[in-house]
Every structure is written in structure tokens, then in C-alpha cells.
């Protein structure tokens, strides 16, 4: 079996371009909704013993605290999540007893993040992302340090970076849509998942590129497009198996693992799927397209020798 992957490059490019443009538009239009870990504030997660009071009832009941930015989000049949700006423990307890007067209620969890903590976390996230990019650039430079023909090594590097941006933008776009329509917030677990995706995405690409180089060394230059196709055929089994076994556990977490890990798993599912797709259908075809583009330019520039 020999599938000619690179034959339909244009279709893959169009699919990815549409997804990326949609992601970027969504990011500009809706932005990202950051969780209280980054913005500071408090979240109270409640379960009412009886019927949940309406959002307005809850808000009215708490009017004396002047919580101007209070939002109430119903959860399931009896639960509710209150989000508000910072409160101290005394006020927190008063809020709970006030709600108890309205209807018997049990607190599942309470989280308060001070403004300085949010700022610190934003700084740390920036540092981590920067470090990750530096580390990955070094990794790519190291992996392709031996110059190989007929495509020079930096082109491998650029294509893997393009695939990387592809794999980060798509989950981010998804979260801007989820944030807008389902109030899903970017939280620490999602940042962790995104950074993990970053690592895996590059690696997937490098495994395939390694094969391409190995085959060029073994079979000689030949037809570059055929070599790429052949390498993809050799590696696709492994790529799919690895992604599949990882996706199995991620779906298990997504469906059964509870709320904390749900969107963490979703980020990884989208990121890893996109990573597998981009390394097979974007990065490798891009190498071929780039080379043929260079060849065409050369032919135009100089008269054909014959």
C-alpha cells in the first residue's frame, strides 16, 4: 500500500486555512475569557438542598453586600456558581448564611484569588510560553543540525514552526468560541494542556522529517515528492497508533473524569488531533510545495539548460 499523501495538498491547505482564519477571527472578535486565577476574584460553588432559587432571587438576597459584579451561573438542577470580585473570609461566611436563609445550601468549594496572585500567574505564564518556544527552537535546530539536501535544514525548522502555530491557534480559537457561548474560561489546566500540545506537536513532525532524511540518505535524492510520500506511509501507522492510544485515555478523562479535568482533556484532544493532522497533512506537503515553488522560480529566473 502506498498512499499518495502529497497529491491533494491543496485540499489540506484550504481546510487548515479555513480553520486558522476562523480561529483568528474568533480570537479578535470574542477574545479569550480568562479564569479568576488570572484576573483575581472569587468563585463560590454551591448545591441547594431543595429547588434552586432563581438567579434574581439569589442576587436580591445578596444585595446588601454591594457585589456589583456578581454573576450567578446555574449548574445542573440544584447547583449554582457565584462569581464575584474579592471578598474576605468574614464576608464569604456572611454570604453563605444569607443564602441559607433563602434556601438551605451546601458549599462545595470556594476559591479566592487576590489581584497580586493573578498578576504573578500571568507573568509566570508568559515566561513559561517564552521558555517553551525557546526550548522548542533549540530542539528543532538540534534535530536538523546536519544540513541535508535537497531541502536546506532551516526549511524543516520553519515548516515545523508553522505546524506548531497551526496546532496552538486551533484550540485557542475553539476556546474563544466556547468562552463566548458557553462561558468556558481559560484556566491553569488549559494552559498546562496547551504547553503539553506544543511539545507533542513538534515531536510528531520531527519523527516524520527524520524518516524523510533517512530515506533521502538511503535511496538517494530521486523524486522528492515520492520520498516524502514513502516516508509518510512508513510512519503513518505509528503516528495513528500513538495518537489513538493517547486519545483513548483523553476521552476517558473527558467523559468520566469530572469537571476539573474536562476542558483540560478537551484542549489536549483538539491539540493532539490537530498536531497529528498538521504533521502529516500540512508540514510534510509544505516541504514538497516549498521545493517545487523554489524550482519554478529557478526555472523562470534562468533559461532552461538543454
Amino acid at each position, binding site marked *: 500500500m502506498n498512499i499518495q499523501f502529497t497529491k491533494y495538498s491543496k485540499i489540506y491547505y484550504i481546510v487548515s486555512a479555513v480553520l486558522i482564519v476562523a480561529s483568528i477571527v474568533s480570537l479578535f472578535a470574542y477574545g479569550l475569557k480568562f479564569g479568576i486565577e488570572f484576573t483575581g476574584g472569587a468563585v463560590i460553588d454551591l448545591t441547594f438542598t431543595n429547588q434552586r432559587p432563581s438567579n434574581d432571587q439569589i442576587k436580591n438576597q445578596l444585595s446588601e453586600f454591594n457585589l456589583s459584579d456578581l454573576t450567578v451561573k446555574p449548574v445542573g438542577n440544584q447547583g449554582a456558581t457565584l462569581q464575584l470580585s474579592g471578598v474576605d473570609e468574614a464576608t464569604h461566611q456572611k454570604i453563605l448564611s444569607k443564602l441559607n436563609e433563602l434556601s438551605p445550601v451546601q458549599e462545595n*468549594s470556594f476559591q*479566592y484569588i487576590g489581584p497580586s496572585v493573578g498578576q504573578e500567574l500571568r507573568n509566570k505564564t508568559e515566561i513559561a510560553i517564552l521558555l517553551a518556544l525557546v526550548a522548542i527552537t533549540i530542539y528543532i535546530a538540534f534535530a536538523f543540525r546536519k544540513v541535508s539536501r535537497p531541502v536546506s535544514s532551516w526549511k524543516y525548522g520553519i515548516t515545523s514552526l508553522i505546524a506548531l502555530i497551526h496546532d496552538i491557534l486551533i484550540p485557542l480559537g475553539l476556546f474563544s468560541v466556547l468562552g463566548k457561548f458557553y462561558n468556558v474560561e481559560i484556566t491553569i489546566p488549559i494552559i498546562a494542556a496547551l504547553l503539553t500540545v506544543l511539545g507533542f506537536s513538534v515531536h510528531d513532525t520531527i519523527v516524520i522529517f527524520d524518516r524523510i532524511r533517512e530515506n533521502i540518505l538511503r535511496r538517494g535524492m530521486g523524486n522528492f515528492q515520492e520520498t516524502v510520500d514513502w516516508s509518510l506511509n512508513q510512519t503513518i501507522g505509528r503516528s495513528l497508533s500513538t495518537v489513538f492510544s493517547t486519545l483513548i*485515555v483523553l476521552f476517558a478523562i473527558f467523559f468520566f473524569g469530572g469537571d476539573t479535568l474536562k476542558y483540560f482533556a478537551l484542549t489536549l484532544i483538539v491539540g493532539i488531533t490537530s498536531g497529528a493532522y498538521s504533521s502529516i497533512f500540512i508540514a510534510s506537503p509544505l516541504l514538497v510545495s516549498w521545493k517545487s515553488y523554489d524550482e519554478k522560480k529557478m526555472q523562470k529566473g534562468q533559461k532552461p539548460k538543454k
Partner: protein
Amino acid sequence: MSQKYYIFIGVLVLAVLSILFAYPSYYDKGVDYLNQKFSWTLPHFWQKDYTLGLDLQGGVNLVYQADLSNVQNKAEAMSGLRDVIERRVNTFGVSEPVVAVQGDNQLVVELPGVKDVASAIQMIGETPYLEFLEERTQEDSQKIIDKIQEVQKVQDEGKDITKVDDWLMALQNPYYKPTELTGEYLNKATVVFDQTTYKPEIQLQFNSDGAKIFEEVTGRNVGKTIAIFLDSYSIIDTNGDDKIDVSDLYAPRVDAKITGGKAVITGNMSTQTANDIARRLNSGALPVKIGSPISQETVGPTLGTVSLQKSLWAGIYGLLGVIIFMVLFYRLPGLLASVALIIYVAINLALFKLIPVTLTMSSIGGFILSIGMAVDANILIFARMKEEIKQGHGLAAATDEGFKRAWPSIRDSNLNSLIVCAILFIFSTSFIKGFAFTLALGILVSMFSAIFITRIFLMVFVGPKLEKFKNWLL
């Protein structure tokens, strides 16, 4: 018997021990049954519990930021503060509280299962109070002891103790009464060593007001003792029961009136004790304010239990899914890899207990993810083996060659994942740390299980008999 069988048996022993350690309850039940039936006395397996994080067992996590603007030695001030808060937290009676310094000026306090968060926060936030107390007269002491007995009696009868006259008197220390001397008059305490005996001593340095008060207090107490209290309890544990309560008392004797504001406490104490005392004196002398927490996370016990259940089921479903997938796609080697994967899970769980790793939602998430990734190495090896068989090699040669040629990819792949974990680890957020740590641990164990254990299995099970099925097997 060749070497590979010894290694194989070794792997099996390791696997059985890990499984028993990770989940001893069936073994223990079996032992109980046998003991009862044959009146044997077989011991239970070594019992150790998993360490569960606050999000899984319920409790509160508080982060404080200390105001160190007036402090010279910041690291020492923080360890003094940690010590003071730990003393207070220990009086809450929660199991295994954590008090730890984070970064330069932050203090993390974790109180599993605490009921009254509000009063815990209030007690933690109080400024440390260091006081020097002098002996009461015998007559005074007797009065207080009588009052304590009276109040005790009323309390035992279940009546309101506040109805007793002067009931507040019963709350006082019966043997010591406060003096004017408190932590605010103390400049610092240092540990020095006697030049002839080399024994540790504690040097106290009072400020000018403190020097006068100290002179008065020592003047009227020559030959008597002066007790040192921090937060209303003895400054150190004196009866060696590892907790500080009303039965402890640290009270050095005054030999003479001391002028000039400099004093030395001598005695038979270890350097460790002297350091403890000095550090606590300093935390009372230069109280570091921490105010209210800058972040707080409270998880109810019900939510914790539900989260734990859910994540366990996610892990079990994930593991089953991967096993089914491996057996369907890689048949015999897939089955062997699945057995290796189960051993991998057991070794990991045993390590969680042994190290011990605090299990949170995130660390369980990292662990489950690592289950999915652990088979990657095997997939790489099997893919290479398939290629070798296609080229006409025998099964044994294909196994050897498969491992050899897949190794660079496995090494690179895992190294890459470890780099990601290292980057994640620089976040000091506990969620990410937990995730990164278990993922990294999982990667290291998976290298062992995928390469070593699967290989031994293949070497033992792949014999000439299987040779003719080789095309079906892979």
C-alpha cells in the same frame, strides 16, 4: 535455565510486590481468612496510604504574603514565621497540615478536613505574641487552681460556666503571671557557644526601654524562674511529646539582677533546641505581619470524594480502552505490552505511595495521560518489528532489530516530553506541578516497562513454535 528466565522471574516478583503494595486489601483479606481457618499468624502486607491532595479529600488551601519591608534577613524571618504558624496550625487538630514557604515571601497553609475556616484564618493571621512571665505566689496559685476546679465542675454538670463568679480567672496560668516584658522590647536573640564548654547558649539583646524593664523584672525575681511563652504556649516542647500544650513549660532561672539589656540563657540543651528557641524569640521580637490570605481555596469533603471516584473511573476506562486497542492491533505483542502496561500502572501506584506523591486531580490527570503515552514506545518497536518481518527476518531477529532501531526515536520522544514537563514545572502553581511531576515520573517508568519488561516477555514467549504464525502475530 538461561539468564532471561531469571530476569523474567525478577520482573514477575517486582510486579507482584508492586500490585500488593499498591492495593493490599485483597491480600489482607485472604491472609485474615487463612489465619482464622488454620490459626496461623501471617502478617498483613506493608500498609501505607496514598497521600491525597486537598481537592480530593476536602480542606482549605491558603496563601499568605508576608510584609518583609522592615526585615533584614528575609529567609530567616520566613522560616520563623513558618514555625510560628505551624505551632498554631497544630492546635487545630487537623491531620497532616502543611505549612510551607513559597518563593521569597509567601506562605502556603493547607488544612485538610478543617471545619471552621473562618476562625482558622483569624488565628493564622494574628501577630505572634512573645511574653515573659514571672512566678505567682503560692497563695495566688492556689486561688486559680481552686477556681479552675470550680469551673470544671460546673462544666461537667453541663451548666453555663460564664455564670461562675470571676470565671475568667480560670483561664489564667496558675503558676505564672505576665510581666511588662514582651516581644516588642526584644531586639534579637542569637545562638552562641560557650568558649570553654562548647555548649550552645542563647543571647538576648533588649532595646533601651526593654533593658530597664528587664532589670526590674530580674531584680525582683532573683532565684526564681521566668517563663517564656509564645502565643500563650511554652516557647518549646519541653516534655518531648512532639506537641506544645499546657503541660510544657520553658522557664530559665534568674541568677542575678541583669543590667544593660543583655542576657544569656545557659543550660543543657542541644544546638537544635537552642536554634528553635532563638528563632521563635526572634519571630516574637520582629513579628512579621501576614494579614489575610491572598488566595484561598476551599473544597468540601463531598466534592473531594466525588472527584476522586470520577478520576479513578476515568483511569480504569482509559486503561481498558488502551488494552483493547493494543490487543486488537498488535495481537500477541499487543497482549504482552498490555501486561507490561498493567505492571507499569502497579509500579507507578507503588511509587506514589513510596515517594510519597500527593495525589490531586491534576496529578491523576497526568498519570492517566501517561498511560496512553506509555504504549508509544511499544508501538514504535512493533512497527519496526513488522518491517523486519516483511523483509524476511525470523521472529527472534526481528525482535532484536525492532528494539535496536526503535530506540533513538523512543529516547528522543521521551526526552522531548521530559523537557515539556520541566518547563511546566517552573510554574509554582500546584495544579501544573502535580501534572508535570506525575507525567515525568510516568515517562521514566514507561521507558523501563516498555523497553525492559516487554522485551523480556517477548524473549521468553517468542520461541520457534511461534515462528510459523509470525505473519499473523504482528
